[in-house]
């Protein structure tokens, strides 16, 4: 085994087994988080597991094509999950149900909170009021001390009341989530929920990342915009792999499939500066391209600039254009191999 391959395997093992530990260890070495800020965020992360509520929430996202907003009615049952309806849309009654993560998955999904701690300096800005409720304001700062995010956490329930995300300059807001009404409820179940549809998605786990790389899948442990790989899933229905990246604030899923991108698949997408890369901005944004026999679909809520950085960090091989003479030469060589009995069998013999 070569040294470089050994190094990849060792680093993969470290990523697979050591990420939560290293993520937790980094803040102590490089920056000083406010202990109260960390504990408030931990409480906010855990609150939906034991607090039921009913509220109205507004989501706004700012991008190159202006802003887009949605008003949602959220009914959350601590033991089941959230039923989310779009208010004021042209589709009254449209609802989605998102099942609560199980306790086993919660440990995995704890990754992003650890990544939030690892990536940003967390500061407790103490006390404020929001929608008539007493709240705590926590700020996340980048290493250059620019503001990355603000969290308003309800003192009584621990629920996240408002979140604002800022671009790299620390001033331009790129995304905001705010409750305009919130009622804490005692019921733990929603009585009218339909059963869930079976899914073909299964967890692969970080321990198999090295094996996936050896099979030719592209999965860097880190991406630009401080995104880190923290989970891998496989969808058995379409053979795709899902690589989950996050920095604790923004989430990106990278889907990979064997094949080449069908031009018909990019209907509704816009072309970008990079040939063969197509994007559709929104909440979330979508980017698709293919390279080296893999079709990439990237879905995430990153601001456009960082989204572009992330996409550029991946391979972008364009199909090679062959001249007529080269094509004839390749064909003649191939025919020559057919005329030789051993040549015809050589692909089978390897």
């Amino acid at each position, binding site marked *: 085994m070569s040294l470089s391959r050994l190094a990849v395997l060792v680093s993969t093992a470290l990523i697979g087994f050591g990420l939560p530990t290293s993520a937790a260890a980094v803040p102590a070495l490089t920056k000083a988080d406010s202990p109260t800020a960390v504990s408030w965020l931990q409480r906010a992360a855990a609150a939906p597991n034991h607090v039921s509520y009913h509220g109205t*929430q507004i*989501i706004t996202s700012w991008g190159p094509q202006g802003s887009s*907003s*949605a008003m949602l009615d*959220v009914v959350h049952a601590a033991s089941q999950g959230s039923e989310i309806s*779009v208010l004021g*849309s042209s*589709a009254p009654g*449209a*609802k*989605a*149900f*998102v099942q609560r*993560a199980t306790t086993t998955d*919660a440990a*995995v*999904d704890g990754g992003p909170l650890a990544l*939030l701690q690892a990536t940003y300096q967390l500061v407790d800005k103490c006390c404020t009021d929001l929608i008539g409720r007493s709240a705590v304001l926590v700020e996340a700062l980048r290493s250059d001390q620019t503001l990355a995010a603000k*969290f308003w956490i309800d003192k009584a329930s621990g629920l*996240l009341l408002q979140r604002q995300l800022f671009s790299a300059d620390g001033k331009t807001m790129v995304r905001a989530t705010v409750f305009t009404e919130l009622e804490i409820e005692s019921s733990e179940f929603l009585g009218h*929920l*339909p*059963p*869930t549809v*079976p899914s073909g*998605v*299964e967890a692969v786990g970080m321990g198999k990342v090295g094996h996936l790389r050896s099979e030719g899948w592209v999965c860097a442990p880190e991406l630009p915009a401080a995104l880190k790989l923290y989970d891998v899933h496989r*969808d*058995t*229905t*379409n053979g795709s792999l899902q690589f*989950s990246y996050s920095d604790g604030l923004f989430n990106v*899923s990278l889907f990979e*499939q*064997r094949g*080449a*991108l*069908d031009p018909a*698949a990019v209907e509704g997408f816009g072309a970008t500066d990079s040939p063969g890369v197509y994007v559709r901005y*929104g*909440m*979330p944004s*979508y980017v*698709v391209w293919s390279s080296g026999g893999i*079709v990439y*679909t990237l*879905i*995430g809520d990153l601001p456009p600039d960082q989204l572009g950085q992330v996409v550029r960090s991946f391979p972008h091989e364009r199909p*090679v254009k*062959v001249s007529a003479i080269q*094509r*004839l*030469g*390749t*064909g003649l060589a*191939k*025919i020559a191999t057919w005329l030789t*009995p051993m040549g015809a*069998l050589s692909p089978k*013999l390897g």
Partner: protein
Amino acid sequence: MTHPLDKLSAVVDGQLDHDSRDKVLSHLVGCDTCRAEVDAQRRVKARMAALESPDPSTDLMQRLMGVSSFSTEPREEVRPVITPVSLFPQRSAFPAGRSTGGTRPGTARGARSRRRAGVLGAAGSAAAVASLLGTAFVVGDPARSEQPPTLQPPVASFSSDHASTSSGAPFADPVALLNSYNGAGYAGLNPTLRPVALTGR
């Protein structure tokens, strides 16, 4: 209640169009029998997909070489092969057999026949070369062998998977979750939104 049994395997394979899939999923929501069937088919498919394809045995090619069709020896069967070159002696022999006047073979008729045969031979050779080059051009197409098959990424399904993953994250926005069953529009506001239950993890 009519069970869409003929569509259950198609929904597992993801081969139904949007409307048909919605109808089947809506049925699955209220039908325990069909849901169990879909679940069972999914498990079988996942199990089959997890199986590794068996490696060919080491002496497979050696045994294949022993098969008569792979042998380098000439075959027993005789296939008639007609080429312009093979026609030449038959045509030239026929008039020679008819000439009973004791004329020598180097007459004007014989020369014309040879010229004709030569033109035919050249034309045949040119056709053969053109055919070879044509075949080579087709075979040499890089898209013919090296390129993988084209596909359309199932964006709606990917949106659902992304939402399921990020819903576990502490501060994911619900709009991403709404997009989970609406890969076609922005912000979960597309009027084609329909109530469909989602699975989480």
